[in-house]
């Protein structure tokens, strides 16, 4: 039932003592990095000053911008030759935030994710089909190695190619899948098309849903259609990737692995901690990261600590489903997109006017991004072909940057809401 019961069911007092010990090491290691060395000297902090878990609040939070500014090596706490792998956050071909791992980091990540999958019920007798992108994105390789560690037969199917996915499930009796929830819904149409019924023709029993927030309703839909128990997986590349928090069989919140991460929930405006049970921004500190320790990382994800004990016996606290973001990041088909990326690309195209609008729609089971763009008045030559070429160019330029093909619509100048300051440029109609 437990992957490592001594850790998973550790008494809170012992767990917190372990956290403190690891936090002290983390702060001490971090002080070797360019970024934290400077930060600690600015606030006049010695690693030895960290005497309790609360002392961490003496250190200001780290943000994605800090990671970008210190790109690429400013957070390294070990010599480069100790590094064995790099990953980055999904969704951008520009300067992404990169995370470097030592062999020890990969072991710790694999272990905590194997613990998560084992908790959900996966065993070495299972056949695990990993339907996530292999590459810089952490969802593919992370789950892959954890599944192998459990000893399951692992099929590295990767993302896309729906018909082959279904064929693999059929031919090799896949029992566990790891899938983006919106893709799981999309795939139901392909099942219909192929005349395959997951419940009668396949042996699926578990699904791990990750890479994008989803509702309880979406989970139920997936469980019903596929005949599986579906588990919510939470992670972010800055904190390894998947394996930060995961649902147990009681499916009532996600256990966040407190031996690996120090958890805070703060008010995003005041940066003060909120009471357990109150919603706020999740702030995480790595406790076992050697290569690139990160202290008090603002995830920008909104959630809350679920008060009380879980009947599964694990003592690691639970967080709720992610309810939103404190920034304007969009997640579409598992890809993270910031509206600023779209703005930057559009403004590089001279034919584009001043205003644009991003609209997210759900068509059937597919998420769709519509980008409505004003045409620059002066460039109009009276030619329909010119407009069609412009639309094609915008579509291609955006696709190459955000990795998703938007539907570009050209509109007349001065017909979209003016963008002044922090105007709302995104309308999300995907809410259920």
């Amino acid at each position, binding site marked *: 039932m437990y992957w490592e019961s001594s850790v998973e069911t550790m008494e809170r007092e012992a767990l917190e003592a372990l956290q403190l010990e690891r936090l002290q090491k983390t702060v001490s290691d971090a002080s070797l990095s360019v970024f934290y060395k400077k930060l600690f000297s600015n606030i006049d902090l010695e690693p030895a000053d960290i005497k309790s878990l609360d002392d961490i609040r003496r250190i200001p939070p780290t943000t994605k911008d800090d990671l970008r500014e210190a790109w690429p090596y400013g957070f390294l706490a070990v010599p480069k030759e100790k590094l064995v792998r790099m990953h980055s956050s999904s969704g951008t071909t520009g300067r992404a935030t990169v995370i470097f791992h030592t062999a020890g980091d990969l072991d710790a990540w694999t272990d905590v994710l194997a613990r998560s999958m084992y908790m959900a019920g996966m065993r070495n007798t299972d056949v695990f089909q990993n339907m996530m992108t292999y590459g810089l994105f952490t969802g593919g390789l992370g789950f892959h190695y954890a599944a192998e560690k459990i000893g399951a037969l692992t099929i590295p199917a990767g993302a896309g190619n729906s018909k082959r996915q279904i064929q693999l499930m059929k031919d090799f009796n896949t029992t566990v899948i790891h899938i983006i929830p919106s893709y799981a819904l999309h795939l139901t149409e392909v099942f219909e098309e192929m005349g395959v019924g997951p419940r009668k023709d396949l042996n699926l029993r578990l699904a791990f849903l990750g890479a994008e927030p989803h509702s309880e309703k979406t989970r139920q839909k997936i469980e019903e259609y596929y005949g599986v128990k579906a588990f919510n997986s939470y992670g972010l590349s800055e904190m390894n990737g998947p394996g930060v928090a995961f649902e147990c069989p009681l499916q009532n919140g996600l256990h966040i692995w407190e031996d690996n991460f120090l958890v805070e929930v703060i008010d995003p405006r005041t940066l003060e901690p909120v009471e357990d049970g109150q919603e706020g921004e999740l702030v995480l500190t790595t406790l076992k990261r050697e290569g690139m320790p990160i202290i008090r990382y603002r995830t920008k994800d909104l959630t809350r600590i679920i008060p009380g004990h879980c009947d599964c016996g694990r003592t690691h606290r639970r967080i709720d489903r992610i309810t939103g973001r404190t920034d304007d990041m969009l997640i579409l088909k598992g890809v993270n997109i910031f509206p600023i990326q779209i703005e930057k690309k559009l403004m590089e195209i001279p034919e584009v006017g001043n205003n644009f609008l991003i609209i997210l729609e759900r068509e059937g089971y597919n998420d769709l991004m519509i980008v409505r763009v004003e*045409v620059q*008045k002066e460039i*109009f*030559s*009276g*030619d*329909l*072909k010119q*407009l*069609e070429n412009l639309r094609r160019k915008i579509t291609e330029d955006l696709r190459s940057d955000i990795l998703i093909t938007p539907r570009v*619509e*050209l*509109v*007349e*100048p*001065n*017909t979209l809401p003016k963008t002044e300051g922090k105007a709302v440029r995104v309308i999300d109609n995907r809410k259920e």
Partner: protein
Amino acid sequence: MIAHQISIFAENKPGRLAKVTSVLASKKINIRAITISSSDEFGVINMIVDDPDKAYRALSEAGLTVSLKPVVAVLMPDRPGGLDKLVHALSDRGINIENAYGFVLESWEKAVFILEVEEVEKTLEALEESNYKTLDAEALASIEPFHYMKY
């Protein structure tokens, strides 16, 4: 001679054409010919009007995205085979037509064919060689499509 066509970028939704026609009506501008080409959610309205400069100003002031585009307006006989002969005169010289439309001036007598081409000069030469008459904005404006004298 070169004529001018008014082209307007318009979204494909109710009221867009009405906005254009109400501007022209209020300025007493006469439309001689009109076509609309559309591509999903947007399109281009092309028009031949009696006073293209005035129309351009009025439509621009009304906030529309307008362009004044040189086109070739050819006077041709309204007879079977009339267009065939005209088009062959162009294709024989390797001239490609980007867009075209026509309107009848006088039934069984005269028609006007509006041509959008990339090579305007070459087109004009080709038409002259084949003895076609081309019209400019002024000539188009003064055409009287209904000849009382004939009745």
